[in-house]
Structure formats: structure tokens, C-alpha cells
């Protein structure tokens, strides 16, 4: 399996970033970058990364299944992550979560029919000072209200 030249370069650099014999340290970033490009961590990606690092596919799956940010099925173009941990919960995170389910018509780790959006209820994303917070792909949105949430989704829909 080959990746884009940019990703190949990133992998190259990652594998050289650790002392000889410690290449497995590159596993998590490699999985993250591959997921961003391929859309999810497919069995081919698992096999390829395992081969490049020199570990077994099972060892890759051990790590992959541990982290909730790594997906084995494709998520939407915009992956909406709603925090419902304590700070967000106290400031209306649950309402955002309910609003999100209604607005997008899908549930936890589900994708909308057009493939544009996916939804995930997540644990703390470290934005407690601006709770309730959500994350869209890698971007944070602070002090979210149901109205602001709707507006955000509508604006994303207009982008294409």
C-alpha cells in the first residue's frame, strides 16, 4: 500500500525520529496521519503500518482498539465530537449532545446518510474553561449553545 508523497515523507521522518529498535514509538502518530488521509484505519493500513514498523498486526490492533480517536470504519467529512464530561455537563453539554443527535439524525459513532457528518460523544477534550465545548475534526468550538451548534452545522453544509 502506498500513501501520498506528503504522508510518505511524514512516515519516513517519524521512523527516523526514534532510536534504532524503538520504531514502535511512531505507531500512534502513523495511525493518526493514515486515518486522516485514508478516512479510517482499514485492515490494509494496519498491515502496512505493522510491516513498516516491524511489529505484528495484533500489536497494532491492541493500540488501535485502545484509543477512541482511532476508527476502523470511515467517519463523516466533519467528525463532530461533543464533550459530556463534568465541566461541559454542568454547563449544558447534554443539551448540546441531544441537539446534535436531533440536528444530524444520527447517534454515537454514526455517520449521516450523505457521509458529510458523524457524531461522537467524547470524554474531556481539555477545554473546560470554555465549556460546553465541541470539536469538529481538529478544530475546537467554545461556549457552544444549541443555536450556535445549528448555525455551525448549517455553515458547514453550505461549504459544498
Amino acid at each position: 500500500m502506498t500513501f501520498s508523497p506528503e504522508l510518505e515523507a511524514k512516515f519516513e521522518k517519524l521512523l527516523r525520529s526514534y532510536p534504532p529498535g524503538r520504531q514502535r514509538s511512531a505507531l500512534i502518530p502513523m495511525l493518526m496521519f493514515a486515518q486522516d488521509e485514508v478516512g479510517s484505519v482499514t485492515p490494509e493500513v494496519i498491515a502496512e503500518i505493522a510491516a513498516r514498523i516491524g511489529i505484528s498486526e495484533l500489536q497494532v490492533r491492541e493500540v488501535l482498539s485502545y484509543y477512541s480517536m482511532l476508527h476502523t470504519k470511515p467517519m463523516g467529512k466533519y467528525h463532530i465530537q461533543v464533550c459530556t464530561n463534568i465541566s461541559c455537563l454542568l454547563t449544558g453539554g447534554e443539551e448540546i449532545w441531544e441537539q446534535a443527535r436531533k440536528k444530524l439524525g444520527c447517534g454515537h459513532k454514526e455517520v449521516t446518510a450523505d457521509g458529510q457528518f458523524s457524531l461522537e460523544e467524547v470524554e474531556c477534550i481539555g477545554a473546560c474553561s470554555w465549556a460546553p465545548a465541541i470539536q469538529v475534526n481538529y478544530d475546537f468550538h467554545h461556549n457552544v449553545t444549541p443555536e450556535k451548534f445549528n448555525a455551525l452545522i448549517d455553515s458547514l453544509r453550505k461549504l459544498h
Partner: protein
Amino acid sequence: MADSVNLTIDGKAVQAAPGTLVIDAAKKVGIEIPAFCYWEGLTLQAACRMCLVEVERMPKLMTACTLTVAEGMVVRTETPLVAEARKSMLEFVLTNHPLDCPVCDKGGECELQDMTFRYGAGEGRFDEMKVHVDEKQWSPVVYFDAPRCILCYRCVRICDEGMGVDALGVIYRGVVSEIAPNKEDHLQCDECGMCIDICPVGALTSGMYRYRTRPWEMEHTGTICAHCSNGCKTTLGTRNGQIIRGNNRDKSGINGEFLCIKGRYAFDFNSHPERLQSPLMRIGGKLEPVSWSRAIGEVARRFTEIRERGGRFGVVGSNRTSNEENYYLQKFARQGLGTNNIDHRRTGDVPALIDALAGRTGVLATVKDVYTAKASLVIGSDLAQQHPLLAYQLRANWRHHQSHTYTVTRGPVREDKYSVHGVRVEPGAELGALESLRDQLKAEPELVILFGDAIKGEAVRRLVEFGDSLGIPVKYICLVDYSNSRGAVDMGLLPHLGPGYQGVENPGMSLPEMLAAEDLDAFWVVGANPLEHNKLAADRAFVVVHDLFLTETAERADVVFPAASAYEKNGTVTNVCGEVQHLRSAVQTMGVKTDLEILGLLSKEMRINLGMWTPESVLREIRQTVRGYNVALPVIAAGGAAQSLPLNGRVTLDSRPELIQSAGDTLFTSGTLGRYSKTLLSVLEYPGVLYGEAAEPEADRR
């Protein structure tokens, strides 16, 4: 650093070497500290927290499995605080553990049951739904029931570290963590079942054994595996005359906890539906069942007649029958039939090694030496496939003692992963390749050399010369194939050598010569299958076969005796290292007799006096007359291994190395016998490969 550390455990003064773990130090003085995750010899996990103990001047309870002993340490292993802690740990473990003990295979021998019984975590405060996951089948022999798993990681560690197979891992996290196989939904591995036996609960269960019995309803018989030459102890669990389980959970025997698929599961040939249960005689061109007396009478009559008219006999012994049977057979042939035409399928050049080492002591390595030697050299063997116990020992030696391993093989082997040097050679060039290792080997403090059938004849002498030239203590193991291949040679199933490597005056015919001799009058095969790939040239020869099954050889027979298997007889066998161990009869199959009894009845019928034919009396004779076999009976009787040392004299060699060839069995084949093990045939990995290549074409096996 002091040589030993003094500490107190439960008021007892204990001395232990620095670095000893408290859990091991306690065991030395008879104090058992419970643990699920701790397993002697594997890396530390400290996952189960059952081994918590109180240590004076330490603020919290400590895990005895990770705490090393220290001078003046005062440990208490059974205080109210410790009991309370363990009870609480059990309550945690039991939050998701199903209480299906009445149908669980492990019920009755489950460590979690025992601990709960001991600490009484009878009430849980957890009132939510238990996490349930359906049971999975990973291979014909391995099933996994995730809810029962207590995540001790023993299975993962024994597979990764002990076996070097890396087939198990842990996926997901927290309360839904699960053990996972290497091929997503199934296993591709050695199918050894180590993970099942090491499981403290019933999470990993065996396809052969599951739901077939309760452990307390079985009888247990410790005997020696019937397959390869390593001589592992396997404890057979039997019920209603059937073998239900093989394992070595009590770690008795030279193999400790180790067993491969053959020792653990391939006992099923014993109850194969094609087992012969009546003597067969050729009547009107067809093999028909007849009575024992008629079959014995017929063979005795024909043998007597052939002997009296000076006809030619050819006798073939087995690599799997006991020492007593082999000894008695050669005595029968030589004294009773007056022939030296006796041979067996030779799989390693033991006589050449015995000769080359004549007069020395301490030069034949034991299975234990492979674990303790500072360095080992493997020549011409895919050890992990062909000699799984030796491979396990070698690997453990590297893990525990950082021993150095060298390999000289014709293809990649599992030992490469940790060997300091692996040399790839063309078959036949093994000996020459040793020169490249000379300097490295010279620097080692000692060496065990394990060599396969690539080194035979003159090459064995040259190997020993090479060993001598290193100037370090060297021990040797000549690798042979089957459970009593070594015993067959020791007992003189050879045309030119009698028991104990004593030369005979008129050497007889070798096996290929017997097969080619058109004027052979009688061909007597005791537990072998020489006609699997060969034809018997003597069309009119009277053929007698002892076997468990109607093999290719038995089909050619005029009389077939149904023989008892190794699991149905008493006696001794000698493993690849020359270690003599006791076979114990675990079950009986109706209609069969042991080869020794058949030989005895035949001799009686023929009025030949060869002495009593009980295993005990024949062993007595062997101990008195066979060179090197005056082994300590109490050791053998107690289930131990006593090494035979037949090195006090030169051996008359026939120097015909072309007769020696290993059958090249893998982990999943076992000559003709292996064909009758449904388990071996059922696993995906069958028939297995040597040196990572496609399997060799089946040679004449068994």
C-alpha cells in the same frame, strides 16, 4: 552484594538470594502467597493484586510478586488487613465474572474459585449489568469465553515469551478489554494449548475437553508422550476408559509446564475408530478377524517351520515401543530366530556419537542442560518444529540467563529471533559452515551442540573433533525423531549392534536390504510402517505385523496383531537426551495386547525360553546387561528422568550414514501415528513447514 538476604516471613526466618521475589522466597519455606497473574519464569505483570502482603515499615500493602527481598524485611502474608484486601480484589474480579461454575470446564480446579472459597468474597456490591460477550472459537483446539477472563495476561505472556509465537494480545481497554488472537477472528500459531492450561479461570478452554467431564470425575495418569523424542511428561485424564485430556498442570516431568499440540491433544489416535481390536489373518486372500490363540499359533507354526529349514527372517522394530519391548524383540530375533536381520527406521546417528565420545563422562547433555548451558549450537534442525521441548528450553535459557544460541540451518528458524548468530547453508554443508563460528564459540565458557540428521557417519566424528578443538566443555545431543527412537538404538534394534552398542559377530541385513531381498521367508514388523512408500520384494514372504491400525504394511501382512499404544502399557522409554522415563498405562482398549505380551506368547508357543515377559523383569535384565542402563530405579519410579550413559567403550560402526534420515516431521505431523490424530489433521496449520518452506514430501515414516 551479599550472597544472601535475611528476612522474616510470617515469623519464619528466610534466607534468599538478592533479587529474589518475596512470593518465591515465601514458597521456599512453604508459605503460599496467592496470585493470578504471577507465573514463575514469565515477566512480572502485577495486574491481579492478589499477592498483597503487609511489610513492616512500608506504608501500604505491597505486591509480593514484584517486591524483591531486602535485609531485615518483615513480611506478613495472612493478616486481617491482607485478607480484607484480597477479598476486595476478588470482589472486583467477580464484578463481571459470570457465575457459570456449574458448567464451566474449570469448575473444581479453578484458581478463582479456590481464592473466593478461601477469602469469602461471597457478596458483591456491584448491582449493574455484567458485561457479556459471546464465546468465540479461535481454532479447533482453542475457545475463548471473554466474560470469564480476569485479565491476568498469563496467556499473552506464555505465548509471547515462553513460546515465542506472539499469537495473543489484549484489545480494547478498561472493563471491556479482551484477549485477542493474531488473525482477528482466529489463531495462527503452534496450537500448543499452553494458553489454556495456564489460564487460572475457564476463559480459555480446549476444544478436545470442553463440556466432556468434571475434573474430579477423571483419573490421572502421568506418562510419557507417544510422539516426538523429547520425552515430555503428559498427564492423561481418563474417564470410562477414554482419554479425555492431556496436560502437565502439575509441572512434573522434564518439561515443566510445557507441552506442544501433540503431547496435549494428539492422544486421540488412541480412540480412533480404525483401531484394530482383533488379530487378523489372511484367509482366502483376505484379512479376517481370528482369535488370539489361532493367530499366535499360526505365526509360531510358520516361524518354527522357517527357522527349522534355515529360512531367512527380517525383523523390523519400532521407534515408539518401550525399551523392554525393543530389548525382548531383538533377543527374540537373535536368540529365538537365530538372525541378526533386525533393524528399525534410523533417524539420527546415535552410534557414531556414542563411539566418538567413548570413554568420556559428562558429555551427553540432558534436557535441563539446554536450559542452563551458557551457549548452544543447533545444527541442521528446525528445533521449534521438530523438537519443541528443546526449543522451549533453549528459549527460556535465553530469556532467563541471556544464553547465546547459534544456528546452522538450511533455512530460517524461530531461534533466529534471539540467536547471536544464524548461519544459512546448503543442505550438506553444515559441518563446513562451523568454521565461520569458531572464534565466537571459542570465547564461550561452555557449549551444548544439538545436531540433526545432517551430521552423520564420519561427520559426527569431525563434529566432536571440532568441539574438542574449541577448548571449552562441550556436551552433545544427537537429535532423533520419535518417542523411543533413542531407546531403539540403545536396545540394539540394529543389524550390527546388540543392546548397549555391543557389536555382533555376523551383522545382518539392514531394513532396505530386507525390503530388497527376494528370498526373504518371513518379514516381521513390530510397530513400524516400512511399506508406506516401499515395496517388499519378497512376494511370498510370510509377513507378520503388530500395529494399532491397518497401515500400508499391515495390509500386506498375513497375520496382524492389534497392539496396545504407548498410553496402554507400562515400561520405560528413552528420550533424545538418553533420559529414561517411565510409561504408565492410562487406559485399555478391548482386544489388544502390548507388544511385549505378544512377543511373550509367541515365544511360549514356539517353546523358546527368553525369560519372563513382564516389563519389570525385562527392565531388570536390561539394567543388568545393557551398557549404560543401570539407571536409578527410584528416580524412574518417582516419575523422574535418569540419563543412560552408554559411553564406556568403542562402538563397531557400519558407517552407512545413507540409512539414517529424519522423517522431517513438523509440530503437526507424527509419522504414521499422526495420521490417526483427528486433532493434528484438523488445525489450519497442518501439515506445517520446516525452515519456513513448503513441507518435504513425506518420506517413509515411523
